[in-house]
């Protein structure tokens, strides 16, 4: 009991967000908790850490627990900005059975509920894949969100350019690994560029991409234009660091499509 209390106090001191505890939600029994910081994430997911580090990963709390007798794993990834938290969430949200309905930014797939909240990307996994885990996942997610007040620092303005329901279709990308995951068709075009920030929208009906890219400098924006004007329709904003991209439709056929074959 004393050890548990010490562990609780230690975690609260280290982690700048609230998480599930027996005090916050009844019928939860914490089995194990681990934290990882910065490059220490390699100790948790080995090479998978690269992607999170590209997105400014700061801290992870992994909790293994039983809730109403069912085993779950919660992972709380604290990122350096809201954009990055949304970004790492966005490239993991795929083929959502439920998107942005119960919670503002969420993606439900079998046995897994993921959501973005402020600087957190949270995953809740049910380890028993034979039960309907949804009511439990919803209850746990609601508790986490309720405990962590959302602070809007306005850095998420880019997201408002797109339709309200976007999980699974709107990506925030800030580097090679993220773009390779979100839309690999474009990845090679961006290999030479660093420190860009891209809002990438894949239209759920047409599967057509569109993106707003903020390059690191005007020189980068120009370089991208020169190298890629034959591949994209490019519109550059007045500050010359921001470009809007659409793929060009091939002369003989249709535009690039994430689901199309070539």
């Amino acid at each position, binding site marked *: 009991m004393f050890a548990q209390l010490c562990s609780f106090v230690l975690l609260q001191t280290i982690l700048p967000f609230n998480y599930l505890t027996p005090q916050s939600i009844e019928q939860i029994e914490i089995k194990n908790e681990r*934290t*990882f*910081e910065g*490059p*220490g994430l*390699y*100790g948790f*997911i*080995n*090479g*998978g*850490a*690269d992607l999170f580090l590209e997105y400014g990963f700061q801290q992870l709390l992994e909790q293994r627990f039983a809730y109403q007798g069912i085993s779950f794993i919660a992972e709380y990834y604290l990122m350096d900005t809201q954009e990055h938290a949304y970004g790492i969430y966005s490239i*993991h949200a*795929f083929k959502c059975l439920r998107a942005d309905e119960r919670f503002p930014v969420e993606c439900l*797939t*079998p046995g*897994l509920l993921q959501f973005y909240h402020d600087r957190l990307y949270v995953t809740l*996994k049910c*380890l028993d894949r034979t039960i309907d885990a949804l009511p439990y996942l919803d209850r746990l997610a609601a508790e986490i969100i309720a405990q962590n007040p959302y602070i809007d620092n306005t850095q998420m303005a880019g997201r408002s*350019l*797109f339709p309200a329901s976007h999980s699974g279709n709107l990506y925030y990308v800030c580097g090679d*690994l993220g773009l*390779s*995951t979100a839309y*690999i*068709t474009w*990845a*090679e075009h961006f*290999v*030479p*560029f*660093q*420190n860009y920030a891209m809002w990438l929208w894949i239209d759920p009906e047409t*599967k057509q991409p*569109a993106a*707003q890219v903020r390059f*690191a*400098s005007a*020189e*980068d924006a*120009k*370089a991208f*234009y*020169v*190298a890629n*004007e034959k591949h994209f329709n*490019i*519109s*550059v*904003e007045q500050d*010359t660091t921001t470009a*809007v991209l659409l793929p060009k439709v091939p002369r003989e056929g249709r535009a*690039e*499509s*994430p*689901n*199309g*074959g*070539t």
Partner: protein
Amino acid sequence: MDRRKFFRIASATGAGLAAGSLVGKPFAAAMPGWSGQQPAKPATNIEEALKIPRTKNSMPGLYPGKVVKIFNPDSVVNETPVESVAYDMLAQSMLLLTGASNLKKAWRQFVGPKEIIGLKVNPIGGTLLSTSHAVVKSVIKQMEEAGIPKKNIVIWDRRGLQLEEAGFNAQNYPGIKMLSTEYQENGSYYGADGKLLSEHRIDKDWYYWADCEQEYDDYTLPFMVNGGKYSYFSKVCTQEVDKIINIPIMKNAGAAVTLCLKNLGFGVITNTSRLHRDLWAETCAQVCAFPPIRDKVVLHIADGLIGCYDGGPGANPQFICQYNTILVGTDPVAVDRIGHEIIIGRRIAEGRQQSQQEAAPRGLAKLQLAQEYGLGVADIDKIQLIEN
């Protein structure tokens, strides 16, 4: 900027860029201040490894360029691999690979009763996405039937904690030794001598050097043996086993795959975090060119009963799928090349990418390198694929 404006695409000529002044100049020269000055790849000690003479056991082993692919839709039931089906799939694979008249003769082409055999599994995906017990237990059973005593079989991977979490323990494998490079005893990573336990499991005579480095903090990574520019090989592979059977699980890493080469390249040495960003493909291929791996790994069994097509190498449930397949060969490059087709094919089917050709240079880089080092066949047209 409102949404309407965002989607209004100006014509290229009216975009307000002074692109005309750039035409005809070399790309980089025309772009002072451009961020895309790519640094050269860090140097490594691969040339030292390539100078060491090969042996009769060196990769790609007895059957260069030959891969057996066995598919069975009944191999997974209720999301759990079925051991009896895995056994049959493996048996079929071994006979087709070797052409032997029975299983004992097939296995004895690779391992003998007096040798210590290490089974290099991949447990990093926990219970959801690790090398399946169905396949590993089938391997053990068939080796025992071929006369390899249980006491001569070792299951190993880099981290003891991950082995335990994935169920590779004495309870599930009675009589089989479990070994890892980074491990703890009695809740501590340090021994009575005050040294990190892992210090005793690394072989400083064998190392992969690369001109990039990283340091680790003891708080979050207490088991890391060393930082700096050296990655030491585990004694498990250099001293404690005579032969190695590589049993990876079919996973992706972006548009590449993590199969035979990756399971070895990043699984048998220390201090790998520094290698992911700039030397991922190189490490996968080059570490396998060092004799403790090149000359000891005699068989590769890629477990694709359950795998993933995205989110790898971590275990992301939404991307976990059933391939219901195992791939077997002595040529890790050829096995990886066939696995690449399967996994990328699934990515295409699921809408994660468009074609096999898309991003192929990136995805196939480590295979091309491994082929250059003489470890196997990357050219798919030169691979002999045998399917059921």
